């Protein structure tokens, strides 16, 4: 056992010095390798962080939403529906919600207008999200005109701006009181956009949804788990898409690795020949090559992962944002909560180190099987 350890130490020693002797070539490979790891890691970390955020946000969302569908489209629903849903067994609460979209020509953006459960402003006041404040240059106390459904202008006063920390969900939000909402959009009293339903027992949600459909045939129930799943799917699909695109880069990297491993310089061949001649066996040289691969992989992996971490969590994902966020003129400026999953790191490892190892195994073996007497014959 002791011998085995000493042997590893000696071989690692020699491997490191041998890598250092060919700094240029090895640094170039390391850079490419690290870049590949960096790209993949950025995608995975970003998607994971977004998933984490969306889960956190959706945790407080109602278990079930009920919408009314008319001619295949989402329509307003009457007060009676809220009462019907509230009466279903298993439902601990049902609340009619008011929300909609407002297109703002000056900033060419869509705002989400919503009446929160308890609006803390007075009539004539509104609370805006940080993104809106930026787009319209509005600050607390300013006037905020909105074009109502009947063509007239409804001017509300900005009471406060929602703090930037929650920008991911609130960037484009306008919170108003119920009366102002109904005036703005010409929504009759006693009608609501949808019903937010809380169900006590999570396992009952599907059953309640079924009951809703039976009692209200033109209703469309949406469960929270479906929303979560949809977000997950989109994030997975998009990050998977990027990974597939990066497959081209990965392939190029693998070819570079293979080429470098097989293209031994005359100096390297001489060195290995000397080692074989003075008593190193094929398995000893193979061990050296394996350690070489391990050192390079570990270094590139560390640099790539750390770089990606910095990129995603400290640098706001500057390079990947457009792909994963989709179309929107209002980009929330937010800081993602750093959260990394060991599973992700394992996936990364698989996507990078495995192809590298597979590409280099045959060239390494070829190098290790150089004839011991090759040095004598030159």
């Amino acid at each position, binding site marked *: 056992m002791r011998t085995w350890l000493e*042997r590893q130490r000696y*071989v690692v020693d020699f491997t490191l010095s041998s890598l250092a002797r060919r700094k240029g070539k090895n640094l170039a490979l390391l850079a490419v390798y690290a870049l590949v790891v960096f790209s993949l890691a950025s995608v995975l970390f970003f998607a994971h962080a977004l998933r984490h955020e969306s889960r956190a946000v959706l945790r407080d969302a109602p278990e079930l939403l009920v919408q009314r569908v008319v001619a295949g489209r989402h329509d307003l629903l009457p007060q009676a529906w809220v009462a019907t849903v509230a009466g279903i067994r298993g439902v601990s609460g049902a609340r009619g919600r008011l929300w909609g979209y407002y297109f703002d020509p000056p900033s060419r953006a869509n705002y989400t207008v919503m009446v929160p459960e308890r609006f803390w402003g007075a009539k004539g006041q509104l609370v805006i999200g940080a993104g809106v404040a930026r787009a319209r240059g509005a600050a607390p106390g300013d006037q905020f005109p909105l074009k109502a459904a009947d063509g007239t202008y409804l001017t509300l006063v900005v009471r406060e701006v929602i703090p930037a920390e929650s920008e991911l969900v609130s960037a484009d939000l306008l919170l108003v009181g119920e009366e102002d909402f109904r005036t703005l959009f010409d929504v009759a009293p006693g009608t609501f956009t949808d019903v937010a339903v809380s169900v006590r027992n999570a396992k009952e949600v599907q059953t309640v949804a079924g009951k809703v459909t039976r009692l209200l045939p033109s209703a469309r129930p949406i469960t929270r788990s479906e929303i979560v799943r949809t977000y997950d799917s989109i994030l997975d699909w998009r990050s998977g898409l990027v990974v597939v695109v990066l497959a081209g880069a990965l392939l190029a990297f693998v070819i570079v690795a293979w080429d470098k491993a097989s293209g031994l310089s005359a100096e390297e061949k001489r060195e290995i020949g000397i080692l074989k*001649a003075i*008593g*190193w*066996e094929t398995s000893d040289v193979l061990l050296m090559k394996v350690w070489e691969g391990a050192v390079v992989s570990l270094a590139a992996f560390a640099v790539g992962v750390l770089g990606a971490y910095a990129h995603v969590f400290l640098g706001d994902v500057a390079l990947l944002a457009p792909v994963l966020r989709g179309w929107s003129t209002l980009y929330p400026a937010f800081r993602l909560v750093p959260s990394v999953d060991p599973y992700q790191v394992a996936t990364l490892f698989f996507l990078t180190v495995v192809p590298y190892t597979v590409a280099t195994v045959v060239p390494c073996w070829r190098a290790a099987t150089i004839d*011991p*007497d090759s040095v004598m014959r030159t």
Partner: protein
Amino acid sequence: MIELRNVRKVFNEGRPDELTAVDGVSLAIAPRTVTVLRGPSGSGKTSLLSLIGAMARPTSGRIVVDGREITSLPERFLTDVRRRTFGFVFQQGNLVRGVTTLENVMLPAYPLGEPRPALLARARGLLEMLDLGHRLRSRAEWLSGGEAQRAAIARALVNAPKVIIADEPTAHLDTKLTREFMEIVARLKAEGKTIVIASHDPIVCDDPVVDRAVGMRDGRLDGDGA
């Protein structure tokens, strides 16, 4: 000590560029002797040396080293026998560039996993014995021709082998250094080592320490000379 029986070595067998480097050589090398293989380049000296030194396997024939037949030993065991029995000195020293002299000397012992302090002491001792004590930390490429050759000898001795094999060791050395080399050979012989040298240098072949000189031509031995 080492016995070759009708040994043949053929390269590229069955192909148009087939080459018989060693053609039916039978040779016995006694322990504690100095044997010189004489002959022009292309005579098969180098191939014969690599067969004697357990670096390659013969295409046919038998080789016995220290009473043990090594003809069909797989590479793993052949290398093990070689490590413990033979030490090699090559034409140009052939030290690893970029590595210190001391480390170069220790290299052959790395795969054996010996504790480092013992190995260091032994390597240092060998280098001092060969007057290289002041060059321990120098990089191998900064050594002069004679120093490199002596470092190569130290490297060959680090695993305490019974046999030293040298392939044209004095090809790049001047007369003075060649004589110094032969003095070292005499010292090693006195210590009980067996030495086999391949050389066409007359200073080597005619040196009194040589017990036997064997001529080689076209892969065959052409008669003895004492």
